[in-house]
């Protein structure tokens, strides 16, 4: 039922993406909307009401089995299951805030990570903080459910700095969007 079900998200979204035709004229409008927005509210999402995915230890990834919830400056912090780059928590920002002078991208790639405290899966938006030089501190490279360029929003190699003044990559945040 949920649009953000970890298993169906990418595919269903991209079917839709792929189905469209000419979008050239819309691009400018999207761009403008993204730039203009002063804050970054998140997509309304719901918890899965359909068949629950298997979250038993046997079904967890190696990342999820070893994740912790206490230190968000470490690569094994639970939300970082699909992050790639420098942690903003090590460079003057926070788990969902950019360091001073950086600009959060209004769009992002996403991951689905399991919180070991409640065993539940959550949707994480990895928003890049942009417009400053690569901070190169606390570099992590989580790859749970991370895919390739043809499924962009699930790829963490792309510089996810769109709708901001400058795309120079500084660091990445892991914003909690909701239950997956």
């Amino acid at each position, binding site marked *: 039922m949920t649009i953000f079900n970890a298993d169906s998200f*990418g595919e269903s979204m*991209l079917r839709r993406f*792929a189905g469209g035709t000419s979008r050239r004229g819309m691009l400018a409008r999207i761009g403008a909307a993204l730039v203009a927005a002063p804050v970054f509210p998140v997509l309304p999402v719901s918890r899965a009401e359909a068949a629950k995915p298997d979250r038993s230890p046997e079904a967890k*990834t190696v990342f999820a089995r070893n994740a912790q919830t206490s230190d968000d400056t470490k690569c094994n912090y639970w939300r970082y299951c699909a992050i790639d780059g420098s942690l903003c928590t090590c460079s003057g920002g926070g788990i969902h805030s950019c360091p001073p002078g950086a600009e959060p991208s209004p769009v992002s790639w996403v991951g689905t990570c399991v919180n070991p405290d409640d065993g539940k899966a959550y949707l994480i938006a990895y928003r890049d903080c942009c417009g400053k030089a690569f901070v190169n501190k606390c570099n992590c490279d989580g790859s749970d459910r991370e895919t390739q*360029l*043809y*499924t962009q929003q699930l790829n963490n*190699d*792309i510089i996810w700095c769109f709708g901001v003044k400058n795309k120079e990559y500084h660091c990445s945040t892991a914003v909690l969007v909701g239950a997956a």
Partner: protein
Amino acid sequence: MKSAVHFRNLGTRLPAAIRLACTTMLGATALAAMPAMAGTASVEPEESSVATLAPPKPNWVYLQRGFVLPGTAIYDTADGKYLAQIETPILGDLAIDPAGKYYYVAETAWTRRLHGTRQDYISVYDATTLKLEGDIDIPGRILVGSREHNFILSDDGKTGYIYDFSPISSINVVDLVKRKFVRNVELPGCADLIPNPGVGLAALCSDGSLASINLTGGKTDITRTDPFFSATGDPIFDNVEFDQAKDEVVMVSYTGLVYTAKLGAKPTVSTPFSIQEAAGVRKGDTKPNDVNWYPGGAQPIALHTASGHLFVLMHTGEYWTHKRGASEIWDLDLASHKVVKRLPVEGEPNVINITQEAKPKLIVVGEGEGGSGAGLAGDAEVLDPATGEVKYTFKGAGSGLIQVFH
């Protein structure tokens, strides 16, 4: 012979500007008209010059230095020599003219480094002087590292295709002969541009299909195969290999399935087989918590087209460790579906390529100082694929893509 006194006297008769240059630094150019030194000195003064380069050769490798140091280093795998640096910026993409006359770099810069106006363009370098001949403005390009298929050339080298993601997916087409941007072609839901001779391009799509992009007519015609892989469940690595002689693409998925596709207006995809089973090992699975051999890395496969051997970076681990570096290189004979050799490798390389010589050499690079994500240049190794012997090690040479001349 000019004594100091002589020189100084002469100086007073020269225009003040030249006198200044002479007396404050060795800006000797201003003295070009003066006779060369002769007489008592036991050495001949030297003149500065600029070296040139041979046209690209099949035994050369092109190593991008990664996410921190810009530039692509050219090494000769025959003698291990460093030859020169091509000016690829961070996140720049290099394409080599098949005729060997030019290097093309797709790049992006802001007028004032971190602000100002964004500019996307192709820089054109003469292959023997490495001098910038000019640049071709384009409307945009994707910003991502370590991909072979975001900037490719047509087989005749006359057309360049640059993948753009803005975040709308499209292709920018550039006429490299006229050095002009031609047009933008939308490519909804697909990425990874592959040459498709006689047709235009091919690409991988998020519905698990392969698209054939017909650019021969005035209107772009995109047709897709039936879906044959799961883009989210068992993705095919972006860095697929293209065999021009056979017009065939070789692809490997996260679990280790090997696909080949015959290109054309209507591509056909073969039934995949498991690289693990080809080595007599249990087939790879998408289940976590199940240790097996998996392919992995940023550029995990390399095809030697003449022999039809595919070399794959393999590591042990669980599923979703597809970025991890290798402990072995598996040599897969595509014709027989057999892994004919497993070469142990040091340094957990995550990029691999192979020269297209009759006796090819493998090149691998691992992470640099600071490990994964730090983006510093790692050491490259040149290996003999027959024996696994390390022929050369290039310190701090790469960490981005490895390219070769076909």
